[in-house]
């Protein structure tokens, strides 16, 4: 690992070149998964359950199979049975049996939209007609829709084989219970002057990427196959498709198409293995695209949750104890991000006594998937609003209150070793000094709120190759799918090390045959970890350049220097070659130069962010207008500031949607009512103001450039910041998400009538 270059000035890193893939994206020529077509291709469509919870008694496909144009129909019974155990995939371990059952149900359906059969036909319309002709006989079972209902004694059981450590051999819907403890929490509360305890409920929300899931697969008669798809992880698609379809992994090539948004939702597979299996069955390529309704019904949203949070502090503003109970919806199969929620909920603070109990709970909703800092936003809604209330009680400014308790280098984490150098204090100071925070907010029904957020960021594996071209330019080949501009950033890292212009580096995101193993684009890892791999590959190329110059000048490689694209040697100013000149000599000095880099980063710097929002609450309609919003984030070192700002703005916008309008609305039969983008209400252009950003740079130790993860943490704090702003505008402490007009209206009405109880204040 190269020594950290903290403190060094950069020539290319930190500038704002036009992104290399920009032209194809603004002309519509860039190819996303659904833009791929092959000759003689079939189209696949899924039949999905209309019931939230039911046993499948029989499936009759003969009428559907008889429709002209239909070439194959499969059900769960056709797929290989996979072991009910964990395997590697996506961002972490995956239970293959659950994955396969989620893609095509076996004996039970567990949510409205759970796939039951797949049809391949000569065109998409015929496939849809065939889907309607499949007859399924269901035995409808009672739906279990909330964590409270799922945890009640006597609740209907989703998976009779599920067990957890505490309940022994008892059937249960609780997949796991984690506990984190420090100190003696009851003693801790005794020394508190103020204690606030509230119960929060946050609704299930979806990542909301504009591009639905897709996949085109071709299974060759020689056993080799290719899958084109929009994904955040081509190697994950390869591994998971191989397992589900029963095909050897090394025989699959996955070509990552451009991706129209992921945010964690495209780290797993839904259609790819099915398309692959259908292609194997029919001998033809198969294309599948998910409808928007199916995306909302059947692809992982993130958990709704119930969080009981109790925090105490002294009247001088010192936090002393925290007691937290949190239950997250896993959906139909285990795997909610409740663990991450537990580890982030009080991460920004130094609290001596704490106990956190975290439950992963099955409900008849789609299997949850990662959504940008999974688990942390739900948690921050609880902790950051209570901390705001405590600050108010102590009469201390909310930023100052946090500074008094801020985690720093050496502070214990909720789990794991103490923090290394982190930027929480710097983030808070930057917020305090921001133009937004320094401005005055005036006018009726207006309030300002701030909140902060923490996210770990992951490292894991990346590999990269740098080729030097004969004209002194270079290409960099990476395996990290580009969701938002990272390809340009990697070209910039390469250019920085080689001492050439960013425009002279061509970046390429390669398929699984053409580049070494890469973990997914997620977990805020790409700029950091792929950046480290690219840095290493470029340095490897520079090492070889020095060796070639040494050969030409009859010196030792250690006597050659390389800076700003020029090779020199000490004590002989006549010996000087630019990379362009050296490139002309590659053939006669040993052949083409290719540098390689491969890293597995075990620890990476965590990120902190802070959000400040000003709101105006309409007293008649309870509509909340966002007047002004600022995101402050410590990114270590921004590679391309425009795209770093873009990540911060994007996370802020999603957080505002989560705060005010987004939620899954299920009826009492367990059917999703708002499975379209009109009623699953995400922010539009008209709902948001300018989004101000402040980039803080506290370099991460041990990283060659000092970068920290960028992509996720900005979504963690906005809902709590909006809740705090509403509290300062109206005097009402909301404890539900979203704080949509009907709920806020009810709370305002109750407050006006003096009928304020805990439940009423929450808008229930």
């Amino acid at each position, binding site marked *: 690992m190269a020594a950290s270059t903290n403190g060094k000035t950069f020539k290319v890193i930190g500038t704002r070149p036009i992104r290399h893939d920009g032209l194809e994206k603004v002309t519509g020529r860039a190819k996303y998964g659904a833009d791929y077509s092959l000759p003689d291709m079939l189209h696949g469509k899924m039949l999905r359950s209309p019931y939230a919870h039911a046993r499948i008694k029989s499936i009759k496909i003969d009428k559907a199979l008889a429709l002209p144009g239909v070439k194959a129909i499969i059900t769960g019974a056709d797929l290989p049975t996979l072991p009910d155990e964990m395997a590697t995939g996506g961002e972490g371990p995956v239970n293959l049996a659950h994955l396969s059952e989620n893609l095509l149900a076996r004996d039970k359906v567990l949510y409205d939209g759970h796939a039951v059969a797949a049809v391949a036909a000569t065109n998409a319309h015929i496939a849809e007609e065939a889907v309607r002709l499949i007859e399924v006989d269901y035995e409808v079972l009672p739906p279990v829709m909330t964590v409270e209902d799922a945890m009640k004694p006597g609740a209907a059981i989703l998976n009779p084989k599920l067990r957890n450590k505490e309940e022994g051999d008892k059937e249960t819907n609780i997949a796991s219970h984690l506990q984190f403890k420090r100190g003696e929490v009851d003693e801790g509360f005794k020394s508190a002057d103020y204690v606030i305890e509230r119960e929060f409920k946050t609704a299930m929300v979806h990542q909301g990427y504009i591009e639905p899931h897709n996949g085109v697969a071709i299974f060759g008669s020689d056993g080799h196959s290719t899958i084109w798809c929009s994904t955040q992880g081509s190697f994950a698609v390869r591994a998971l498709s191989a397992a589900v379809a029963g095909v050897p992994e090394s025989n699959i090539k996955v070509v990552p198409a451009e991706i129209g948004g992921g945010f964690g939702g495209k780290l797993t597979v839904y259609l790819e293995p099915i398309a692959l299996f259908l292609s194997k069955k029919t001998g033809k390529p198969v294309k599948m695209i998910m409808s928007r309704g199916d995306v909302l019904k059947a692809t992982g949203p993130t958990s709704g949750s119930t969080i009981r949070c109790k925090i105490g502090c002294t009247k001088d503003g010192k936090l002393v104890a925290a007691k937290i109970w949190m239950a997250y919806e896993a959906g139909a199969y285990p795997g909610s991000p409740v663990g991450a929620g537990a580890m982030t909920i009080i991460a920004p603070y130094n609290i001596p006594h704490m106990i956190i109990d975290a439950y992963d709970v099955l409900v008849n909703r789609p299997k949850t998937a990662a959504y940008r800092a999974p688990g942390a936003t739900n948690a921050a809604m609880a902790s950051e609003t209570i901390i705001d209330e405590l600050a108010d009680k102590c009469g201390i400014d909310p930023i100052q209150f946090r500074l008094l308790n801020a985690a720093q280098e050496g502070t214990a984490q909720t789990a794991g070793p103490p923090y290394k150098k982190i930027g929480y204090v710097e983030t808070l100071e930057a917020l305090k000094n921001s133009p937004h925070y320094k401005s005055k907010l005036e006018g009726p029904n207006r309030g300002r709120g701030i909140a902060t957020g923490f996210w770990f960021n992951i490292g894991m594996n990346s590999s990269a190759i740098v080729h030097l071209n004969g004209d002194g330019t270079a290409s960099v080949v990476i395996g990290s799918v580009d969701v938002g501009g990272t390809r340009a950033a990697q070209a910039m890292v390469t250019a920085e090390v080689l001492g050439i212009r960013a425009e002279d580096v061509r970046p390429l995101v390669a398929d699984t045959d053409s580049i070494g193993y890469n973990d997914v684009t997620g977990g805020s890892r790409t700029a950091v970890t792929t950046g480290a791999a690219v840095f290493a590959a470029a340095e490897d190329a520079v090492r070889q350049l020095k060796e070639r110059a040494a050969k030409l000048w009859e010196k030792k490689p250690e006597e050659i220097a390389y800076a700003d694209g020029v090779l020199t040697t000490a004590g002989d100013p006549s010996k000087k070659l630019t990379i362009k000149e050296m490139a002309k000599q590659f053939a006669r000095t040993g052949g083409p130069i290719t540098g390689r880099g491969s890293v597995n980063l075990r620890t990476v710097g965590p990120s902190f962010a802070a959000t400040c929002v000003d709101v105006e609450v309409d007293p008649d309609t309870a509509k909340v207008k966002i007047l002004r919003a600022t995101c402050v984030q410590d990114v270590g070192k921004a590679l391309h500031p425009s795209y770093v*700002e873009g990540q911060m703005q994007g996370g802020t916008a999603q957080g505002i949607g989560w705060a005010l309008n987004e939620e899954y609305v299920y009826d009492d039969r367990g059917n999703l009512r708002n499975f379209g983008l009109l009623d699953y209400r995400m922010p539009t252009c008209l709902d948001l103001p300018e989004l101000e950003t402040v980039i803080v740079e506290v370099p991460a130790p041990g990283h060659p450039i000092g970068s920290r993860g960028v992509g996720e943490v900005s979504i963690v704090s906005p809902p709590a910041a909006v809740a705090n702003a509403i509290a300062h505008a109206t005097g009402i402490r909301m404890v539900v998400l979203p704080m949509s007009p009907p709920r806020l209206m009810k709370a305002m009405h109750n407050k006006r009538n003096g009928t304020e109880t805990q439940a009423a204040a929450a808008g229930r």
Partner: protein
Amino acid sequence: MAKKTVVETTLNGETVEFLCEPRECLLEVLRDELELTGSKEGCLTGDCGACTVIVDGRSACSCLMLAVEAQGKKIETIEGLAGPNGLHVLQQKFLEHAALQCGICTPGFLMSAKALLDRNPSPTEPEIRYALAGNLCRCTGYDKIVRAVTDAAKTLASGARAA
């Protein structure tokens, strides 16, 4: 299944003929029949705007229009936005302002923005936000998109050629 119909239309300035089933929407025909995949499918219910095209000068969701309705009309898609001398000012400004991240909504935004500037060359920020409210973006929070459109309007107003 009904027989296919021949439709004649003007597409990006050229006369074009295509075959389609009556039940197909314009978006499907653009993408699958004419292989113009620049217009994107996000929802098929007219809520996201990723399929935005311009029909007889008005922006429209091509998923809400039957392909047969294109008969005799003037259709503009993203593929026709750049001119013989290079990118449209809007496309150039989107690149300069980093107004795209994943890029899937970008063609739709560019067409909506063009339809706006064609009829209102000096829009205020609220007017820009209102005109673009039918295009959803999940990546950017819209900030840089609005800046790009504002800058493009200024550049065009100063007499620069559009494309």
